[in-house]
Every structure is written in C-alpha cells, then in structure tokens.
C-alpha cells in the first residue's frame, strides 16, 4: 500500500472495500489526517477494531478543536488592548469560521497575522501574557527570522505549552513573489468575537503559497485536503468565487502556485473546478504528486531522493543563491543548539 489508498479513502470512502486497514491507519496518522479520515469513513462498513480507532480519532478531533479555539481566545485577550486587527490563519481559522475543512482537522500551532507595524507591540503583549521565546534572543535564528521571514520567531506559552506563529505576510521577504500584505489585512473578515480570518480567496492563496512556494511539501496530503474542502465550500457559496480567486492569485503574484494547487487537488481529490482555462496535468505536476504520496503502509517516508530534491527546492525558492549559501553554511557549521 502507499498513500494513494489514503487519498482514495478521503475522496471516496465508499470505494474502500477490504483493504490494508492497518496500513491505511498508519499512513493517516503519519500524515496527521486520521481525524478527517475518521469523519469521512463514518457510517461505512469497517472492521470493529478500525471503527474503534475512528471513533477515538473523532473524539480526539473534538478535543483538538476545543484546544485550538481556546488558544485563539487566549491570544485575543492578550492582544485586544492593542486595537490591531488579529487574523487567524490555517487550521484555527477553519475551526473559528466553521468551514467544512474543520471537520476532523487537527491543529498544532496557532497561526495569526497582524500588521507589520504592530509586530513589536504584539510580541511585547504576548510575552507579557505568558508566551516565551524559543530561540535565543539576538542569536542567528532570531535575527534571521526578524530580518527575512514572514513571521516572528515562534513563541511558546509557559503553562499551556502551545506555540504561536505571528505572521505579517504569507511568504518570506526573501522569496521572489511579494504578496500584498495590506490587501490581505484590508479584505479580512471579522468574526463575532472580533478576531478575523482572511477572505476566502486569500485563504486559498495562502494555502497554495504555504504548500508550493515556501515548504518542502511535508504535510502536503493534508494541505491539499484542506484546499479541496475549502474550494468546494467557497465555490458553492459564491458564484463569482473563481474570478475572485484568479484576481487575488495575480495580485499576490502566486497565480502559478494557485493553479498548481487546483490541478493537484483535482487530481488527488477530484475537486470540481471551473471549466475555463484549467491546464492539464503536467510532468512537473507528476513530481509533486509523487512527492505528496511518498508514504508507505508502515507510515514510513519513501522516495528519499525526491524528498531531498523538494527540500533543496524549498530553500532555493526561499532566498537568492548567495544568501542561501551563507545561510546553509551558518546552519551547517554552528554548534547544535537545543531549542
């Protein structure tokens, strides 16, 4: 078995007959998508042991949701006095907005976005409210984050042991595309409690940016599942959604990455897309697909070389060659620091 069985189970739960159940469970756990799978498989005839695993996963997902929303509320309370917009991102946003993508979605860190000009005040307020630095102040990582990244160095809460990533845009400043951070904030949508989420089209653009323009595709199977769920919901709610998505992708200089996200989502999860202009699945797309599916039924990573190639690519995209050389040199030669 490989991760293709997992993808099939997510896409079409009824099609999973007698299969390598243990392999499916291990792959789903490794990809951290067991919660979503458990909800998708609800009501399907599965062996008793597997049903018990799914039931526990569904309960665990409810806990993850509670924890994520609580963490958002803690950040809201810490930052409310500043009067700056606080935008929830990724999993926490799906839960806060009750999007379909929330169903079974586990959430690790809390991701928020604030105006760049407010970063210092936001960080100070969080440090004041019990969050702590994980990176040594003024160390290489700390300085690197502050100078070049799209987020502050991660903070962790002293008692709750949960991390927060404070973004001011959606891609590192060293990356070639320059998303319009002001537009992201300006068009964000307020929730009842005063926290905000990105506009639907921007949520997709951010997901695509995170997947293709910033990372090595680790967790890609789950990220694409998010994209599939979101696209279905957004397209059904707004007849003009595809046009908006095209416009926002162009605005943020991420049209190629968004287009690739759509093609891969359709390929893996049969996401219905608009008819016009969608290109066919290319050879490069196949490499991305192979990378996303590089997981076997023991939960092990496969295709070491391909993984490494995508790792190199992620760094290549993140910064210009000379800077990359210096960055890798520093990382390779410094003493291993335990964060």
């Amino acid at each position, binding site marked *: 078995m490989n991760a293709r069985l997992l993808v099939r189970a997510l896409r079409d739960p009824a099609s999973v007959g007698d299969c390598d159940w243990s392999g499916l469970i291990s792959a789903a756990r490794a990809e951290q998508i067991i919660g979503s799978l458990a909800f998708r498989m609800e009501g399907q005839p599965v062996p008793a042991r597997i049903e018990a695993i799914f039931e526990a996963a569904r309960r*665990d997902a409810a*806990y993850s949701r509670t924890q994520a929303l609580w963490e958002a509320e803690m950040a809201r309370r810490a930052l409310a006095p500043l009067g700056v917009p606080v935008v929830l991102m990724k999993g926490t946003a799906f839960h806060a907005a009750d999007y379909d993508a929330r169903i079974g979605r586990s959430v690790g860190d809390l991701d928020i976005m604030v105006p760049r000009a407010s970063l210092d005040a936001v960080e100070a307020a969080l440090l004041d409210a019990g969050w702590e630095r994980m990176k040594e102040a003024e160390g290489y990582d700390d300085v690197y984050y502050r100078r070049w990244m799209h987020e502050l160095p991660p903070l962790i809460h002293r008692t709750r042991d949960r991390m927060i990533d404070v973004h001011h845009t959606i891609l590192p400043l060293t990356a070639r595309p320059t998303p319009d951070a002001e537009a992201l904030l300006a068009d964000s949508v307020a929730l009842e409690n005063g926290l905000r989420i990105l506009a639907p089209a921007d949520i997709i653009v951010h997901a695509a940016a995170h997947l293709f323009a910033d990372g090595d595709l680790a967790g890609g199977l789950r990220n694409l599942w998010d994209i599939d769920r979101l696209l279905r919901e957004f397209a059904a709610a707004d007849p003009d959604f595809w046009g908006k998505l095209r416009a926002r992708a162009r605005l943020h200089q991420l049209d190629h990455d968004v287009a690739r996200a759509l093609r891969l989502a359709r390929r893996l999860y049969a996401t219905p897309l608009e008819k016009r202009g969608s290109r066919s699945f290319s050879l490069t797309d196949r490499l991305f697909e192979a990378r996303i599916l590089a997981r076997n039924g023991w939960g092990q990573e496969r295709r070491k070389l391909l993984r490494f190639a995508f790792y190199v690519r992620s760094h290549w995209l993140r910064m210009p060659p000379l800077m990359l050389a210096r960055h890798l040199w520093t990382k390779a030669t410094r003493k291993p620091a335990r964060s």
Partner: protein
Amino acid sequence: MRHRLDIQIGPVAFRIGSAWKAPLDALEHLYASYPAPEDGLADFTVRLEPERPWRRFIRPSVAIKGDYVLADAAPVSLAHGLLAAEMGMNLQMALGQKRYLLLHAATVEKDGRALIMTGESGAGKSTLAALLGERGWRLMGDEFALLDMASGRLLPFPRAVSLKNKAIAVMEAEVAANRFGPRLDGTPKGAIRHMRPNADAIARMGEGATPALILFPRFGEAEAVRGVGAAEVFMRLTQASTNYVALGREGFDALNRLIAANPALAIDYPDTDSAVGMVEDFWRARAA
C-alpha cells in the same frame, strides 16, 4: 519492513516491524503463547529502524518509531533491541491510546474485583503486582490500567513485566527461568529483565474486572497506612493518566465514578513480602 510480528495484549493489537531479525526473535520468545490478533489488524504500529541507512550494519542503532513518536527519543543499541520494541509499544499507548482512560498503574484481580496500584516510578508497583500475580492473584498489568469509560470496568493489559535492578532477583526467586527475557545491562534505567506473566494472566487477557480498591504504594519506608481523600485521589490519578485531558467530559465523569466507588489508601512498606501481607489484609477488610 523486513521483519514483522503481530501481538495482541488485552484489547490492543500491535504490529511491530523491524529492520533486524534479532529484536523480533527476542520479542517472539518473550511473548510466546500470546495470541496474534484474530482480525489480523493493528491498533498501533511500531517500527524499529536505523536512524540512517548505513546504521543497519555499522554500529547498528535502533530508532524507536511508529504511529506516535517522541521527537527527541534516543536510539538504543541493537543488543537492547527488545527494550526498543517494548518502549515503542509503551509509547504508542502513552501518546496514542484514546479509546480508554489510561492510568499509569498496575492492576491485579481476585474474585472478579480489581486492585489498582499507582505511584511514581520506583514506588514498586510493578514488582508488587508481579509478585501478587504469582501468589493467588491474576496480573492484569504492571504498567497501564485501561478504564472503559462507559462500563467503569478495567481491562487487562498484561504485557511483559519490566523488572528493574533489584526487582529482577526478587522475581527470579519466584518464577521459572523460561518466562524471562534476556537480562539487559547498562540501559538508561540500569539493568532490565522482562518477565512473561503466567498462563492464567495471558489466557484471561480478554476478561475485565470491576475496580474495588485504589492503593498508592511507596517502597523503602517503615510500614504505614493512611486514608486518602477523594480530592487527593483525583489529583493523583489525573497526574497518573496520559490522556485524561484529551478525553474531556467523558474522562472526567469516568474518573469521578471510579473514585466515588472505591476507597483509597497510601501505604509505605519496607519490603515486598510485607507489602503482599498488607494488601491481603486490606482485601479481606474490603470484602468483609
């Protein structure tokens, strides 16, 4: 994976894969007479694999992987491969078990009623449970107690008992040699030797029991007994549980019912024989 072994322990089925044969041979010997899962499926998968490909051959070291992993778990030497497998299974339970309320506790059973013993590492619960298991009680588990939240019953998890340091000799004096695994010296916890529970414990691993008494034993002190109030029991058991918070309301209610229905005692004891005597006394008093 190159080698594979499936083991059923109580309600939990493990699939253990390994890059080497030796750890699974040792495991198979230790768990001889345990059934393979009837459905051929696994609740948890454990993987024993080299950290880097060449470490399969050169200075082989076993990384403990699986469905749930600790990011900073140190690899162990191949000679301690059995320990790696045991740690891997424990890790799955501690991090991934969300079906039952899991207490870090030893349990033994008599007449259908269960005695729960919990305490910090080194409190002697494992040894005490193992000894009781040879002296008229059924060993349900030396490490993890599984509380079924709906029924309030405890389910057995009679994995091999992990004996450390001085406890090894105590049990070697009590139990036939063929029930022991190899002695592993120089582990991070000192000397370790695993012991297979007796045939009765294995044959009845599907049979739960209603809890009757909670003990907090402490080894190495003069004999002493003190009643423990419900609030303290609650705090101690939440600390002894790996998944109490994650189970939410259901876990809270189940734990409360457990505490309301059962007396709890903290006992100090100088040696295991006196502890066995104390336990028998409490049990008679509880039954009367």
